[in-house]
């Protein structure tokens, strides 16, 4: 199968490469050697030399560009695996000592968490060993040979303008309109909802039904709803697959189905860049593309890291998916994906046994022997959850769903998958146990600092000979694999922030695998004021515990002179954890903003002409939204505020755009000026033209991602950056609490004052009478 794909010009994959070149054995032998050599006992002084020597080689070797590609890449991974495996063997054979039931239980828990960490690290290395960057698969010149595409936009309760913009963008895709059937799948206006026993809910559902239907009519696309809301989004898509099986309104049904979350706005080139793969491979069921987010998630927003650092999902879409693709293991991510209709129908539609129906569906189709493709160019633009609560809700769903797959459809045992695919899915499911492991890492040093429990039996020398090189090697390997798309410590930060909430969610799923139900991730919420997330409390508890642990550690240092090494190790560990909690406090203090439309940062040339001036002024467009844009000019005397200008631009696809805009504000910047412009709405079609310009050009999103990935950050710099962000975030949080307390006290004072005055008045009246 892999050879077939390669012959179709789809690039190299490890499967085919290994088979074709006979490299399988040459990788198996070093791997066996790594296993063998990891178990060889060495005197501590030799271990020092070996471990630190290998870390040094790893550090130097990973700098060379030539080693980025296989087989050099495999060498780096094996080297890292060797250092880490020696540590794990040391941990298993020399540190697990029974010193009491409670001590041993916690020690075992910590060890299991470390085993988990090592396993997920090793699986990550495997998945990302041989990333596959595919060549484009252009459609044939004759459009009559292009497949018919049904676009499904499932919606539940999202604001109508969000659904509307996505639908408008679908109508603007560069694809023959007669081969494009666009459907809004409205689960907010189902028959069951319109007949809800609560009159208020029923009225709201009827209103929504009418409004979404009117929207669909207005945009000249089809509206679909169903009787009930069974199986949530999966059920909604399956109902649409059934009702459009013979096409609608005399049109042919789609050969392919494009599934878009209702806030995922497609660029013009989406179908032109993806549909061609289906013509090359009849067994292809999926082309998945990245989810590009226009707005920061709550972590990026509240720690203000959005502009300088790759987004959280870029590690997945910018590295891991390429790795999964190389093993034919790319999975469906619920949106921004094109699927072959007949294969989807053959599989019984979108699966619904778990709440991550997308990954479950892909697992089923991979098991049937069908193929997937990952195209790494971002071609949809969507919205991240905006509040910390919504973010956790989304992650808890992903965690619970992937663990449901692990329990109910364990990829190790599903029939039909190839071994690499099993490992890919295992990696994707197993990853979500991080909540438990990270929680153990966050709390383990407390057990020693407070109660002197021996959760980690090793001397400082052993830690320096085994543990620290392992940590360094893991970080070097992670940096090697993901450095461009994930800066050091950001994975740990995200895990730490989520772990407090995901650990219980995962435990509840382990207890009742079929209990979790699908909850829609809220998008486009209102956040005009700063506020404290209701989920903040656990981080304050951790902060207090960490600070008290330092005091307890200081006492232990003085009172138990023989325990200096233990206090030092756990104190350092506790300090490291404290940074994450400080950053978490910054995250839970939600920053409000007064924005209208979400802006996309850009850097492109344009021309402006002030109204009836006949002059053309070159400008750089710095950001753009549906409402307007920010421009920069070197002109000494730019158009003044209130002046109408004509803006002319050309996108990277060669389309010309022209808009009238109002200069809303001007600001001196360097030698020139910055202008804030608002687009003038001329008529009912202006929004189509604006939408087409703002969301049509996917290369703008590519440039944006590349700009954020341009400057990989070293470990030390990343550490201090995180420390600085943590302190700034925690101070902002403290100031927020101070302001809240002041206003509460003031309110309380006013109430008391009012009551006192009232009492005085009553008393005076009584005295007079």
């Amino acid at each position: 199968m892999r050879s077939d794909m390669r012959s179709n010009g789809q690039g190299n994959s490890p499967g085919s490469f290994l088979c074709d070149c006979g490299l399988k054995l040459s990788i198996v032998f070093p791997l066996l050697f790594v296993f063998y050599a990891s178990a060889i006992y060495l005197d501590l002084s030799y271990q020092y030399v070996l471990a630190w020597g290998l870390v040094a080689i790893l550090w130097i070797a990973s700098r060379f560009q030539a080693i980025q590609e296989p087989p050099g890449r495999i060498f780096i991974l094996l080297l890292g695996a060797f250092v880490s495996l020696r540590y794990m063997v040391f941990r298993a054979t020399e540190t697990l000592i029974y010193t009491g039931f409670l001590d041993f239980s916690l020690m075992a828990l910590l060890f299991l968490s470390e085993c988990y960490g090592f396993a997920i690290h090793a699986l990550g290395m495997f998945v990302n060993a041989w990333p596959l960057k595919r060549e484009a698969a252009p459609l044939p010149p004759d459009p009559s040979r292009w497949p018919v595409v049904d676009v499904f936009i499932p919606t539940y309760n999202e604001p109508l303008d969000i659904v509307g913009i996505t639908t408008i963008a679908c109508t603007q895709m560069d694809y023959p309109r007669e081969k494009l059937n666009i459907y809004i799948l409205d689960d907010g206006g189902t028959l069951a909802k319109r007949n809800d026993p609560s009159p208020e809910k029923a009225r709201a559902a009827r209103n929504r039904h009418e409004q979404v239907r009117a929207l669909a009519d207005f945009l000249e696309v089809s509206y679909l709803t169903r009787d009930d809301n069974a199986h949530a989004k999966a059920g909604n898509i399956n109902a649409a697959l059934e009702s459009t099986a013979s096409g609608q309104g005399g049109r042919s049904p789609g050969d392919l189905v494009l599934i878009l979350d209702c806030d995922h706005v497609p660029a013009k080139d989406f179908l032109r860049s993806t549909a061609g793969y289906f013509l090359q491979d009849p067994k292809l069921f999926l082309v998945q593309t990245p989810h590009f987010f226009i707005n920061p998630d709550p972590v990026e927003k509240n720690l203000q890291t959005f502009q300088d650092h790759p987004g959280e999902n870029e590690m997945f879409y910018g590295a891991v998916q390429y790795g999964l693709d190389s093993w034919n293991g790319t999975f469906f991510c619920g949106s921004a994906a094109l699927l072959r209709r007949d294969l989807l129908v053959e599989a019984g539609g979108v699966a619904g046994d778990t709440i991550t129906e997308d990954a479950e569906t892909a697992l089923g189709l991979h098991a049937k022997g069908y193929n997937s493709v990952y195209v790494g160019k971002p071609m949809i633009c969507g919205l991240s959850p905006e509040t910390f609560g919504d973010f956790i809700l989304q992650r808890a769903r992903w965690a619970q769903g992937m663990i449901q797959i692990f329990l109910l459809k364990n990829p190790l045992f599903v029939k039909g998958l190839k071994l690499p695919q099993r490992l890919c899915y295992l990696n994707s499911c197993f990853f979500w146990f991080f909540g438990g492991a990270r929680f153990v890492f966050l709390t383990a040093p407390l057990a020693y600092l407070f109660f002197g429990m021996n959760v980690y039996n090793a001397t400082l020398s052993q830690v320096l000979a085994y543990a620290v090189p392992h940590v360094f090697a893991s970080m070097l390997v992670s940096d090697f694999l993901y450095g461009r798309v994930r800066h050091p410590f950001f994975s740990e930060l995200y895990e730490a922030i989520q772990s407090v909430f995901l650990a219980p969610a995962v435990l509840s799923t382990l207890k009742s695998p079929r209990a979790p139900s699908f909850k829609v991730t809220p998008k486009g919420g209102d956040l005009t004021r700063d506020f404290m997330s209701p989920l903040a409390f656990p981080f304050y508890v951790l902060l207090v515990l960490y600070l008290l642990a330092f005091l307890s550690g200081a006492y232990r240092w003085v009172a138990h002179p023989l325990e200096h090494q233990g206090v030092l190790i756990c104190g350092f560990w506790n300090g490291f954890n404290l940074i994450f909690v400080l950053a978490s406090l910054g995250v839970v203090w939600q920053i409000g903003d007064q924005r209208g439309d979400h802006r996309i940062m850009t850097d492109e040339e344009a021309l402006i002409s002030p109204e009836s001036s006949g002059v053309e002024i070159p400008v750089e467009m710095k950001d753009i939204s549906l409402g307007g844009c920010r421009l920069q000019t070197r002109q000494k005397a730019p158009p003044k505020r209130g002046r109408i200008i004509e803006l002319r631009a050309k996108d990277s696809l060669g389309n010309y755009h022209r808009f009238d805009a109002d200069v809303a504000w001007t600001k001196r910047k360097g030698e020139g000026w910055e202008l804030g412009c608002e687009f003038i709405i001329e008529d009912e079609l202006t929004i189509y033209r604006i939408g087409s310009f703002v969301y049509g050009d996917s290369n703008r999103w590519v440039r944006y991602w590349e700009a954020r990935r341009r400057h990989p950050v070293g470990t030390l710099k990343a550490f201090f950056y995180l420390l600085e962000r943590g302190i700034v975030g925690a101070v902002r949080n403290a100031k927020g609490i101070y302001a809240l307390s002041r206003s509460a006290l003031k309110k309380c004072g006013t109430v008391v004052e009012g009551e006192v005055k009232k009492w005085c008045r009553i008393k005076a009246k009584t005295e007079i009478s």
Partner: protein
Amino acid sequence: MRMETTVVGNVLVIKPLDKTIDAASGKDFKEAVMDWVGKGHRLLVLDLANVDFVDSSGLGSVVSCLKALGSGGSMVVCGVQETVGSLFKLTRMNKVFKIFETQGEAVRALASATVS
């Protein structure tokens, strides 16, 4: 297209009685409005209380009436139902037309704008 018209001072209130403004009725609407504009009415209130759907062409007709009035006239909208309101919001027509809840508010706003 059936329409009810009322003259309040120098303001003409136009109230479509049909539920829909589409390509066909939009054309009638535009012709009728042009007729009134030709008769000297420059301040118009469009009361959409009865209208529950406007398609793209219908909305286009309404916009072209506004354009035809030019800088010497004005047209505001009132009584917009939720379905039509969401279409106005999506197409940003709320930036093109001033929208009022009731006919009275719309008439007063137009009249006072003329006085000032």
